[in-house]
């Protein structure tokens, strides 16, 4: 019985499908913008985009109908801060393109050509409901880590949704280590590199004049010019309350900077400053240990308190889990719902929590009009779930990305099926597939 079931699952391995017009009806429909789920909802996707979503939406003639049978239907999860596509096995350095410890370049690095859509983490994360990800390089020897991208997790070769969608820099203890050993050095190096880029923008010849004394390469200067003028959002890893305040103050000097704060462990201590500056944050919400002296105030109520103060809070899966376990986003968001029931703690409503892993991160990276929700005109990234997606162990039963039906089968599923009965049969396991 189980064996038959497993085999049929394996047989479902699909080739990448063409964009199709599809209407998912009879859904518990989650738009993803913080509004409440709509029972009996319908979402219509045509030409790869959502054209209508809600109750009482008519299904146009000729469009395939999929009956969700009352299950949750949501936009795909947007991983708020990830390295998916940049690594296969973290400790196998040849597969790991997160960072470039020995390069002379910094801000100019662009992860786009390093992304591997065929990597198994893409398929595994997709099977957990993640359809888009904000991917940043990790910082290595230089202060600026380089330019990240917004990607999709479809099973095709074209992974990049928006290249050079962000610049990444770490302040705090990480930044100090790169800048020469102190926070003072970090802020000075940051400022001097931006000023050098600005001089270069005004007169490209200056870079040649500086010669070997130039503190940045041409490619880095090009990238930083786009940070200074606000074209490229600047994602800043920062945790200590005082560091957060000082990073926000950089906007006084560089007013067009489009800051997004990442980590923000002690953000709740300065929530009003963050809200007043209208700077969005990406947090890993279950961080509650004083893992370092810049995280002494860590609490799982951070996300809820920031949200209550009016800050745009995206929920992500950071650090060691950032390439392989993006699916933890739903678990973390669910925990925020649970926290709202704990005396003295702050969490989120279900609707807010879901938005924090869909439309809110899309907005943080400047793509609120195109991904992260099922509003008309958005990408046709749709997931049907077997249960409440914020509950433990819920899984997608169907996924579309840009209106294309996606395979949910992973290499892990193949291994599981092979060993559903561990003993060898008539032939060794190597023949069992």
């Amino acid at each position, binding site marked *: *019985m*189980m064996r038959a*079931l*497993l085999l049929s699952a394996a047989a479902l391995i699909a080739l990448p499908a063409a964009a199709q017009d599809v209407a998912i009806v009879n859904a518990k429909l989650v738009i993803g913008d913080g509004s409440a789920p709509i029972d009996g909802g319908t979402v219509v996707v045509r030409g790869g985009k959502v054209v209508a979503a809600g109750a009482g939406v008519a299904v146009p003639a000729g469009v395939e109908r999929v009956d969700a049978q009352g299950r949750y239907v949501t936009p795909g999860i947007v991983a708020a801060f990830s390295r998916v596509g940049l*690594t296969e*096995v*973290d*400790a*196998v350095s040849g597969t*790991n393109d*997160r960072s470039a410890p020995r390069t002379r370049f910094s801000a100019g690095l662009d992860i786009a050509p390093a992304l591997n859509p065929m990597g*198994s*983490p893409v398929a*595994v994360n997709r099977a957990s409901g993640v359809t888009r990800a904000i991917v940043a390089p990790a910082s290595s020897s230089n202060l600026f880590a380089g330019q990240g991208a917004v990607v999709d997790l479809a099973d095709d070769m074209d992974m990049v949704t928006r290249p050079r969608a962000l610049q990444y820099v770490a302040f705090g203890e990480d930044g100090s280590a790169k800048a020469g050993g102190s926070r003072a050095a970090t802020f000075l190096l940051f400022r001097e590199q931006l000023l050098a880029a600005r001089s270069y923008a005004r007169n490209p010849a200056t870079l040649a004049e500086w010669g070997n004394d130039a503190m940045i390469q041409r490619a880095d200067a090009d990238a930083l010019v786009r940070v200074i003028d606000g074209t490229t959002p600047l994602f800043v890893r920062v945790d200590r*309350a005082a560091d957060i305040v000082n990073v926000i103050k950089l906007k006084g000097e560089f007013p067009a900077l489009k800051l997004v704060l990442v980590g923000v462990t*002690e953000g709740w*201590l300065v929530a009003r400053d963050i809200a007043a500056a209208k700077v969005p944050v990406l947090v890993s919400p*279950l961080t*509650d*240990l*004083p*893992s*370092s*002296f810049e*995280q*002494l*105030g*860590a*609490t*799982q*109520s951070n996300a809820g308190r920031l949200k209550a103060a009016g800050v745009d809070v995206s929920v992500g899966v950071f*650090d*060691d*889990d950032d*390439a*392989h*376990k993006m699916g933890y986003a739903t*678990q973390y968001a*669910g*925990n925020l*719902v*649970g*926290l709202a*029931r*704990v*005396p*003295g*703690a702050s969490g989120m409503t279900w609707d807010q929590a879901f938005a924090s892993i869909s439309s809110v991160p899309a907005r943080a990276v400047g793509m609120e009009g195109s991904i992260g929700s099922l509003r008309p005109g958005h990408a046709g990234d749709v997931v049907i779930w077997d249960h409440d997606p*914020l*509950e*433990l*162990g819920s*899984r997608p039963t169907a996924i579309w990305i840009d209106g294309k039906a996606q395979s949910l089968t992973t290499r*892990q*599923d193949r*291994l*599981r099926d092979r*060993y*559903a009965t*561990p003993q060898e049969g008539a032939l060794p396991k190597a023949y069992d597939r």
Partner: protein
Amino acid sequence: MIRGVKGSLLAAVSLALVGCAASNGETASAGDKPAEKPVKFNKDPYPSTYKGYPARLTVVKGVTIFDGEGGRIDNGSIVMTSGKVDRIGGPDIELPTDADVIDGTGKFLTPGVIDIHSHLGDYPSPSVEAHSDGNEATSPTTPEVWSEHSVWPQDPGFSRALANGGVTSLQILPGSANLMGGRSITLKNVPSRTVQGMKFPGAPYGLKMACGENPKRVYGGKGRMPSTRMGNFAVNRATWQKAAAYKKKMDDGKAVDRDLAMETLAGVLAGEILVHNHCYRADEMALVIDMSKEFGYKVSTFHHAVEAYKIADILAKEGICSAMWADWWGFKMEAYDSVNENIPLVYKAGACTIVHSDDANQIQRLNQEAAKARAAGRRIGIDVSDEVAWTWLSYNPAKALGIADKTGSLKPGKMADVVLWNGNPFSAYTRPEKVWIDGALMFDANDPKRRPVSDFELGQPGEGDVK
């Protein structure tokens, strides 16, 4: 989790066990000849001073109970007295009239969670270099080190494991840099000024061993043996051989120069110290099993056991537990073949199944990890009830630690290590409401005074905050 890839490797490297000596028993040693006055080595030189805090006669009624051994009682009641479980039952059991009575309607009651794999205290928060006390990575075999000598009782992580995870007992292991990392210790999750004040009374010691990538990388990187998996085994076998000779000398009543390393290994060969073996790959676990037979010891538990599903039948036959994550994968080569169904597949094969953390964050939600694993099993037709899945979190780890006669389930006479959850503990929306350890209320979500705050956090931002 420790930040960064390097951090995760470090965390994976680190593993160990410390246990409390099973007794005050002493080992006979001897002079050159069969001894008339054998030298006695104290087996318990750092004895537990743990005592349960004052426990009130307490009743929780109208609650859904998972008893930890696979039993479930709806609309159940529990009576805790003098630090012990007095009885559990349905609505008809007789309840004392002079007890503190808690209405558990809509709530769930379970034995406390037991984490068989933790580094709280030996890799504490903050994870600064000065606190890095989990790996004595100066020799591939260091069975002479005891993790209790590294544990910092002020690690703030203990309180998070209590308040968010309902963890009442945990094993602190040395790391996995070494083939033989040293002794582990089992603790009650009750704050104390001293590690002795946390030691689980009567728990046997464990020996942390590690196979695979970590030892060969650490020592190969230093240009010394072992630098390969075959080197791992060669060093292990040579060390076991030496231990067997040491033990024989002792057994024969001959004089030995006291050797703390050999003393630990002789304890393993005598069955007094339990082996907790970090091992990911199926083929390596199978080789370790043969090595254990070659030298006459038993592996209690394979930790991490990412590929346990490939040899679940062998693990069942050998009676070896697997302590596993629900879904960790991809951080290193030997974690590449992870499957989300590992835990349910091991369970289905009839092998001892444990959910572990190895992580100061995930120890706070082992119930959630079990829930994910159970859901993955259900999708392939392995249906595990809530109450059976709880055995992965309390009774099975208690068995593997040698403390199942004292805790891990709600049988009368056992320690009243109990969690009252504000909903079904297999939901993301549920948190502990109250935690009793030896019948004493050590956490109460409704009472900020029943929330431990370590010395480290006093006077710091967020002191006494919800965490």
